[in-house]
């Protein structure tokens, strides 16, 4: 077993809670004394920031929302003077104003430690070349994994995203051991390899660490087959640190949370009340180790569940279910909540590929949903009847999965857009 920091990752619950309690106390104090937003929020709610005695007191604290970051754009939530900030990243800002995050030296160290744990959990060692195909820049993907690879003592190969033929060339020439990118880009790289006539067996690549967008176990199996590797999930969001908030171990079932730095809770989406282990709700994180941006009970809009108890891999840190999708990604179609990940799950169950596009429109005041899927070896036929039957079978399966009708259209291979970063799965043409 490859554990980077066993004294934390395999610690008993009492030890973890003692660390968390001390760090929560310090975080709340720091936030209250340095961030006007938190001072006002605590005072208005009548909360004594010095009255925390246990990590379990966290439920008494108010939530922080994405809007609070936007209201204090760009640097209003920082708890340290600019002289202590050594790095700034920003989210893609696809919905509204982008959110800006800052890091002190200690914050960068924490982040590197977090991603080093993730790379080690995927089997990475100091002997390995870590091929990083996440974008480098304001996006946290590239630099997040980069510092983790260096922390581990491995070779960080900062390829960044794009120029896919060159990616394949480097995988071949340098003999990269582990690749890091979005799962959709991993698929694209695999397809490109196939086109170039390069078999996965000819590469030394043995694992991939994929994240920054929700993906299903079906897609995992497809990527593993296409690239001949074991595929590990990594989760994170820039507000909390970036990739490395949680990560897959060799069991590939639920992601271990770096809970000594990022304390997780799952709460009921509507009531905000904490839920039991195993119950899905909205993920909430408190950055209990960070200096520059000590967010308290930040609502992620990601849907997941928590599982306490020792994992088969030997780690004791709490695990979170693979997020079902961001509630931001959720579509409401005729009043029914639809997640793109549900569509993806259905596709993989029926042997369709995972290149798909959901198009939503409103016709005669009625929401219409169309799912375009690329035809593959399993679905191609010489008769119209077979192809229409495949479409019908998928339509029926989607209907029972989503409880809403979706028209299915099979399209030619490689005609749907490919992405070098986060895949775009939904086009919503509704003008509301």
């Amino acid at each position: 077993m490859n554990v980077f920091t066993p004294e934390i990752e395999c610690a008993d619950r009492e030890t973890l809670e003692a660390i968390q309690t001390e760090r929560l106390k310090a975080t709340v104090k720091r936030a209250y004394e340095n961030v006007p937003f938190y001072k006002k929020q605590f005072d208005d709610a009548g909360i004594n920031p010095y009255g925390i005695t246990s990590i379990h007191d966290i439920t008494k604290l108010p939530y922080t929302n994405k809007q609070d970051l936007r209201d204090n754009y760009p640097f209003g939530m920082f708890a340290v003077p600019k002289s202590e900030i050594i790095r700034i990243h920003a989210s893609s800002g696809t919905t509204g104003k982008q959110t800006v995050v800052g890091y002190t030296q200690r914050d960068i160290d924490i982040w590197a430690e977090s991603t080093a744990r993730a790379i080690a959990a995927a089997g990475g060692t100091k002997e390995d070349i870590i091929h990083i195909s996440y974008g480098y820049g304001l996006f946290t993907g590239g630099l997040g994994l980069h510092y983790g690879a260096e922390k581990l003592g491995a070779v960080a190969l900062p390829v960044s995203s794009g120029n896919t033929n060159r990616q394949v060339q480097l995988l071949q020439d340098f003999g990269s051991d582990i690749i890091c990118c979005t799962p959709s880009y991993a698929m694209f790289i695999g397809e490109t390899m196939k086109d170039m006539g390069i078999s996965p067996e000819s590469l030394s690549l043995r694992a991939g660490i994929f994240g920054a967008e929700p993906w299903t176990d079906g897609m995992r199996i497809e990527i593993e087959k296409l690239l001949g590797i074991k595929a590990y999930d990594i989760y994170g969001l820039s507000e909390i640190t970036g990739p490395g908030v949680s990560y897959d171990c060799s069991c590939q079932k639920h992601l271990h949370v770096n809970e000594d730095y990022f304390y997780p809770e799952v709460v009921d989406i509507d009531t905000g009340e904490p839920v039991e282990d195993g119950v899905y709700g909205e993920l909430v994180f408190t950055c209990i180790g960070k200096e520059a941006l000590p967010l308290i009970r930040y609502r992620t809009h990601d849907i997941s569940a928590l599982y306490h108890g020792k994992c088969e891999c030997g780690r004791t840190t709490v695990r979170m279910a693979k997020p079902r999708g961001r509630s931001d990604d959720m579509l409401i179609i005729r009043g029914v909540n639809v997640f793109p990940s549900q569509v993806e799950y259905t596709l993989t169950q029926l042997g369709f590929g995972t290149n798909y596009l959901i198009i939503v429109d409103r016709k005669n005041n009625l929401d219409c949903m169309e799912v375009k899927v690329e035809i593959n070896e399993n679905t191609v036929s010489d008769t119209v009847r077979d192809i229409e039957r495949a479409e019908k079978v998928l339509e029926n399966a989607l209907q029972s999965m989503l409880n809403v009708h979706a028209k299915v259209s099979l399209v030619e291979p490689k005609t749907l857009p490919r992405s070098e970063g986060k895949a775009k799965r939904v086009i919503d043409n509704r003008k509301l």
Partner: protein
Amino acid sequence: MFVKQLSIFVQNQSGRLSEIAGVIAKAGVDIRALSIADTTNFGILRLIVDKPDEAVKALKEMGLTVKLTEVVAMEVDDRPGAFAEAIKTLSDGGVSVEYLYAFLSRAPGKARVILRVDDNAKAEKVLNSGGITTLNEKDLYLM
């Protein structure tokens, strides 16, 4: 003694067929017969070619999905009533036809029909015992 047919899923998009035909041409493959099944959203291009494996390779490199199916090729006289007799022979023999397409042979007085049926072996047996010639790939490619 069946014949290989290539089926290609083609989206209804202007210029697409031209691109596909161009790829086949470039591969130096000769088309012996073809038909297109069309629906509102897509078409299926079916081809009988002289070098099926090379055609499949070229089309796959273009990123298309190609399905290879075995079909039956029969030869009938080019005269009124010959096709009706052949189809009646199949029907009486309990063979169902999914689709078919026909073309003239270079051999004078002969026409050829590609048949996609539910049971190739049975179709061939029924046709042959009804006195109708079925063709193998060599017959078709060298016509």
